[in-house]
């Protein structure tokens, strides 16, 4: 199949990069670029203008990369015609190529206002390499520059020209600078700081005319002000480039209209990047482009489920020594919203948080931006910050002291250069910062390769990542997800997507198709692949015991001395005298040294030899006791309180509901262990709010809480939804578990997964979309039919007998 990509920019080529990793060889790919260069980092043009980087430094993919991946690159030849009926594109040179699938990634165009004089020599936009070359050239022999537009791009242009020795004035239509990204107080601080660096400002300045005889001589404003100029840069803003789409008759609005699947109104034509409009929104920052590229690549690779969900994005300004950061809402726009501000004009520090109830919905930071990423995190998680609200504005360290917790990883701004970050390799913060600056590093892998920081145990990874983020600003979002293990460069998401999209049904196929370097895989990827395959192909994939950790292979928990423990299931924590007698008799008969009640309301028999296990299981089976999967990345327990049957406070039958949930869910394998609970009233005696999924019964129904954890890092659940009936509870439990099964990374508990994806995402897929919830639930039940066989009974009857054979003495 032929894939033609129109546009050799950042979004389009990221999609191609993702695609060749996911499905190498699926398409013959041809890329058209209007500029005569290979793919480069457009964001870094400001750094080239300011003299911090060369053009070579900002190349993303060299021509050799295109060749190595079998991609035909046609540069300097813009596509001028698109014919969706004939499925062809025609370029300026007359070259016509037909396609099966087309990707439009034509970016944006500078906005050109209807003012006289735009065509005079010495007037440029600030958009591409040619513009930057013209600006650098002008700085060499002209004196006075005027930049029209005081937004992000205009200010970066002004600063670059100033650095190159020109005298620079900025004309801006609005009363304050960067009004789309920051509020008025931050805009004023910014203007003051740039003013002190020698840039002049004409705010409230409506440009009426650019004048000059043979070339530009100045800019006249509507109020009569006159700004002389030898060179003018237009940086009013950008608008999506819809010319080709319009000519081809695709649906357009402000941009080329696409759905969640990144498809345009023509099903064979996809679009990503600054040219698109998704749900009424257009895009000018890089982070959403990467996400769009990822979804588009997954779709092109055949993954029918991939969907684009916009995330809040943050802005930062690339002017050395000036720190501006903003995300989300800039001001309180609603009666429910309010603002928390800290304004120290003298020191040039300003912080504002926009709150809706007790949740952060926006932040503007000036001068001190170290906590920016933390605020973004709080926003993405939709976290209730009521308990730290009064400390929030002072930053993470101070706020979290109130919770008796202080995670050091975000304190990197305050960290002295001499402080050791990586204990394994003896690397200091100063060394990391210097290497990033000297070598122009932008990814965590690069930092690891050059400094060794976080290359060993990896414990300091969050700190190294934070230092990198601080050093390179927004550019760190260009980082690719970490590889699954040393056998592949692909991350977990890419591997999962490829398994589904390419129909890979055995481990050997997956490793071969995805270019694994070790034919056997390794101890890290084998259990992960085994899980991903059994999740993707229920009933088809044959479980590979040799890729299971010992506990899951032998269905018991290995102990430090090499003996095993045995935990039978107790449905909802309910047992009977007969079951207890059977456990007692079995323990006596087999000489079990320790019997313990677990935290999950069951009984653990510790110290059994491996060769004893089948006989122990046979005895337990006789009393109706089956495996509790206490050894698996699987459903463990459903803990309950006694509920309305006995308790005078109980509102619903929590025990009965817990048993129903456990009967539905037992036997399922998951990315990591899963613990559930049902509490009969909000007193919450079953501790449901620190479980992967907890149900808290109330008079009006059932609150479904998700993403809790009682382990090393305690996390309280988030409320997903309140439902009225037990049937709805069961559907939500099944759907939530299936979504976790299908999307989380192997060995990722629900708590970090929920934090990574955000509660809003889960609500969108599970609560708002009833049809999707029903389908997830059905897939869960379908998979369950293959797993609800007691593994103990099978082994007591002789399966895997070699595994449990008594030790043979030789010699």
């Amino acid at each position, binding site marked *: 199949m032929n894939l033609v990509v129109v546009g050799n920019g950042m979004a389009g080529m990221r999609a191609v990069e993702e695609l060749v990793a996911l499905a190498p060889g699926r398409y013959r790919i041809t890329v058209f670029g209007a500029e005569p260069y290979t793919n480069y980092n457009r964001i870094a043009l400001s750094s080239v203008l300011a003299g911090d980087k060369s053009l070579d430094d900002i190349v993303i993919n060299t021509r050799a990369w295109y060749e190595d991946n079998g991609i035909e690159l046609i540069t300097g030849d813009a596509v001028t015609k698109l014919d969706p009926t004939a499925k062809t594109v025609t370029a300026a040179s007359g070259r016509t190529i037909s396609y099966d699938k087309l990707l439009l990634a034509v970016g944006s165009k500078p906005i050109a206002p209807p003012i006289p004089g735009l065509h005079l020599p010495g007037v440029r936009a600030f958009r591409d390499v040619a513009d930057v070359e013209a600006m650098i050239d002008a700085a060499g022999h002209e004196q006075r520059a005027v930049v029209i537009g005081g937004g992000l791009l205009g200010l970066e242009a002004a600063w670059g020209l100033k650095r190159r020795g020109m005298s620079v004035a900025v004309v801006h239509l609005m009363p304050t600078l960067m009004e789309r990204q920051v509020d008025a107080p931050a805009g004023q601080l910014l203007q003051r700081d740039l003013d002190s660096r020698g840039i002049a400002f004409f705010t409230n300045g409506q440009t009426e005319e650019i004048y000059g005889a043979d070339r530009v001589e100045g800019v006249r404003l509507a109020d009569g002000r006159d700004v002389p100029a030898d060179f003018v840069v237009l940086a009013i803003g950008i608008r999506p480039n819809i010319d080709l789409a319009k000519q081809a008759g695709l649906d357009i609005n402000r941009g080329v209209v696409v759905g969640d699947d990144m498809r345009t109104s023509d099903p064979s034509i996809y679009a990503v990047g600054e040219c698109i409009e998704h749900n009424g929104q257009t895009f000018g920052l890089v982070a959403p482009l990467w996400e769009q590229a990822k979804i588009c690549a997954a779709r092109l690779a055949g993954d029918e489920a991939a969907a684009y969900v916009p995330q809040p994005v943050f802005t930062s300004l690339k002017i050395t020594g000036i720190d501006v950061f903003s995300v989300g809402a800039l001001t309180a726009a609603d009666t429910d919203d309010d603002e928390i501000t800290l304004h120290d004009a003298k020191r040039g520090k300003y912080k504002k948080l926009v709150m809706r109830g007790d949740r952060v919905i926006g932040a503007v930071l000036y001068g001190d931006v170290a906590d920016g990423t933390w605020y973004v995190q709080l926003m993405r998680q939709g976290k209730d910050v009521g308990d730290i609200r009064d400390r929030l504005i002072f930053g993470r360290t101070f706020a979290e002291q109130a919770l008796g917790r202080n995670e050091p990883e975000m304190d990197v701004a305050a960290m002295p250069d001499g402080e050791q970050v990586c204990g394994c390799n003896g690397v200091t913060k100063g060394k990391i910062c210097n290497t990033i600056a000297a070598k122009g590093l932008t990814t965590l892998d690069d930092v690891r390769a050059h400094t060794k920081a976080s290359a060993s145990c990896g414990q300091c990874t969050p700190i190294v990542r934070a230092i990198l983020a601080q050093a390179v600003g927004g550019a760190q979002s260009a980082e690719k997800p970490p590889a699954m293990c040393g056998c592949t460069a692909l991350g977990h998401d890419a591997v999962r997507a490829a398994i589904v999209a390419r129909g890979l049904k055995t481990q050997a196929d997956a490793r071969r198709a995805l270019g694994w370097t070790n034919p056997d895989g390794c101890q890290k990827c084998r259990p992960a692949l085994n899980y991903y395959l059994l999740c993707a192909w229920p009933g088809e994939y044959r479980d590979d015991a040799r890729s299971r950790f010992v506990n899951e292979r032998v269905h018991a928990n290995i102990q430090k001395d090499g003996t095993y423990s045995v935990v039978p299931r107790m449905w909802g924590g309910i047992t009977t005298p007969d079951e207890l007698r059977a456990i007692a008799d079995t323990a006596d008969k087999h000489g079990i040294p320790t019997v313990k009640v677990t935290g999950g309301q069951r009984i653990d028999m510790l110290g059994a030899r491996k060769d004893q296990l089948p006989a122990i299981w046979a005895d337990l089976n006789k009393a109706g006791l089956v495996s509790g999967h206490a050894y698996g990345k699987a459903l463990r327990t459903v803990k309950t309180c006694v509920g309305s049957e006995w308790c005078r406070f109980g509102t619903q039958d929590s025990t009965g509901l817990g048993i129903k949930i456990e009967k539905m869910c037992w036997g399922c394998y998951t990315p990591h262990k899963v613990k559930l609970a049902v509490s009969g009233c909000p007193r919450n005696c079953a501790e449901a709010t620190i479980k992967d999924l907890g149900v808290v019964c109330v008079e009006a129904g059932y609150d479904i809480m998700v993403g809790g954890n009682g382990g090393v890092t305690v996390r309280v659940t988030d409320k997903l939804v309140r439902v009225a009936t037990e049937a709805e509870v069961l559907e939500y439990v099944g759907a939530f578990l299936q979504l976790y099964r299908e999307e989380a990374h192997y060995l990722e508990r629900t708590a970090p997964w929920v934090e990574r994806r955000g509660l809003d995402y889960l609500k969108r897929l599970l609560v708002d979309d009833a049809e999707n919830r029903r389908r997830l639930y059905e897939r869960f039940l379908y998979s369950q039919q293959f797993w609800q066989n007691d593994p103990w009974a099978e082994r007591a009857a002789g399966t895997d007998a070699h595994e449990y054979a008594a030790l043979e003495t030789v*010699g």
Partner: protein
Amino acid sequence: MGAIMADAWIDIGAADDIPRLRAKKFRLGDETVAVFRTSADEYFALLDRCPHKGGPLSEGIVAGRTVACPLHGWVIALDSGEAVAPDEGCAPTLPLRLVEGRLHLRWP
């Protein structure tokens, strides 16, 4: 151990009794010996004791010429018994030979 002659090969059974990518263990004197089979049908014998905390290597996941200890995840090279960096330590190896489909083991 004293009773066993240092150069005596002991027949420990058919090579095919050990599944690929798994191990079988044997009692030899006071020691437990783990005999591994790789996916390329290579066989290696090691004392079944991880140099870290004595974990049973025979229960670990075998990949290439390595096994990962089930207790704390140390990775041990099957041919040398050495732990893979950054960990340090060594599980003693034993001489093993394959004669007409049967495995012969002896003390080092």
